[in-house]
C-alpha cells in the first residue's frame, strides 16, 4: 500500500494526524499552483484551505492505487477557476503588456536590470493569457505534469491540452520577441506560423 493510500485509510477512520501528514506533503505544490493561476496570495491561501476541506468528504471515492497529487491539483485548479471567474481579474489585454515596454538597451542577459525587466515582461505576458492557457502553462512548466495528467486535472481532452499549450507558447513568444527578451532562432521560431 502506498503512503497516500495508508493515510487515506487512516483519515477515513478520523485520524487527524494522517490528514495533517497529507496536507504537509502537498501543501506547497498546491499553494504554488493556486498562486500561479490567481496571482493573489490571499486567494491562494483560501483556495488551499478550501481544497483540502472539499477533498476530505470525497476521500472514500479516490483511487488510492495512484498518487493523490493530480486529484488534489484538480480540486485546486477548479477552485482557482471559480475565484478567477468571479473576479475576472486574470486577464490583462496584451496591449497593456506592450505598453510596459521599457526604453533602453537590452544588453547582457546577466545584468540584473535586464533580468528584472524580462521577469516583469514574462509575468505580464502570462497574465495576459486566457485562464485555460495560463493553467496549462503552470501545470506543464511549473509543476511538471504530463499532457495526460493535465488533461485529467483540467477535465478536457488530451488534444485540447496540446492545443492550449501550443497557442500559449505562441502568444508568449510573440510578446517576448517584441520586447526583445527572446531572440528568434531558426526552427525554434514559430512566430507568424498558424
Amino acid at each position, binding site marked *: 500500500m502506498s503512503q497516500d493510500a495508508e493515510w487515506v485509510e487512516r483519515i477515513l477512520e478520523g485520524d487527524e494526524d494522517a*490528514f495533517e501528514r497529507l496536507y504537509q506533503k502537498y501543501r506547497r505544490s498546491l499553494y504554488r499552483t493556486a498562486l500561479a493561476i490567481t496571482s493573489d496570495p490571499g486567494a491562494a491561501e483560501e483556495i488551499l484551505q478550501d481544497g483540502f476541506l472539499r477533498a476530505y468528504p470525497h476521500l472514500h471515492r479516490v483511487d488510492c492505487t495512484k498518487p493523490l497529487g493530480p486529484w488534489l491539483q484538480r480540486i485546486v485548479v477548479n477552485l482557482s477557476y471559480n475565484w478567477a471567474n468571479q473576479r475576472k481579474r486574470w486577464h490583462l489585454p496584451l496591449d497593456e503588456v506592450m505598453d510596459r515596454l521599457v526604453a533602453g538597451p537590452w544588453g547582457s542577459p546577466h545584468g540584473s536590470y535586464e533580468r528584472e525587466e*524580462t521577469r516583469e515582461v514574462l509575468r505580464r505576458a502570462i497574465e495576459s493569457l486566457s485562464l485555460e492557457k495560463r493553467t496549462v502553462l503552470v501545470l506543464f512548466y511549473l509543476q511538471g505534469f504530463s499532457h495526460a495528467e493535465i488533461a485529467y486535472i483540467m477535465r478536457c481532452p488530451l488534444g485540447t491540452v496540446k492545443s492550449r499549450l501550443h497557442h500559449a507558447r505562441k502568444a508568449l513568444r510573440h510578446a517576448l520577441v517584441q520586447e526583445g527578451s527572446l531572440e528568434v532562432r531558426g526552427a525554434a521560431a514559430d512566430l507568424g506560423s498558424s
Partner: protein
Amino acid sequence: MEEDRRISEPPDDLDLLLKWGLRDLYPEVEPPSQVWENIRARFATAATRVAVRTEGKRSSLHGLARFRALLAAWSARSEETVWVPRRAAVGWMETVPPRPGEAIYDEQQTTIHLWVLANALGNHAF
C-alpha cells in the same frame, strides 16, 4: 507532438525561459500556518458530526432492544401466546442498517414493527 518533441529535441529558448521564469515568478513557498489551523478546526467539526450521527443510531438500536425485551415479558405473562403477524396501527418499522455509502439514519427515522400478541392483548393494536 509537444511531449515527443521534448523527448527527441533539446528544449528551445522559450521552453527554458518558461521553465525557469515560472519557477522564479512563483517559487515553492510555505503557506501561512493559519491555513492548516483553519483546516484542522473544520476537520474536527466534520469528524464530530459523523460521531454524533453514529451515536444517534446506537441509541435507536438500544431502544429497539429494550422494546423487544418488553414484548418478551408481555408474552411470558400470557397463558396462550400467539404471535400474529399484523401491523400495529402505529406502524413502526424495524431499523435497517444502512448500506455502505448510504446516509446514516437519525433517531427520528428509526422505527420498529410491532408484532401484536393477539390473544394476550385481545386483538387490540397499540
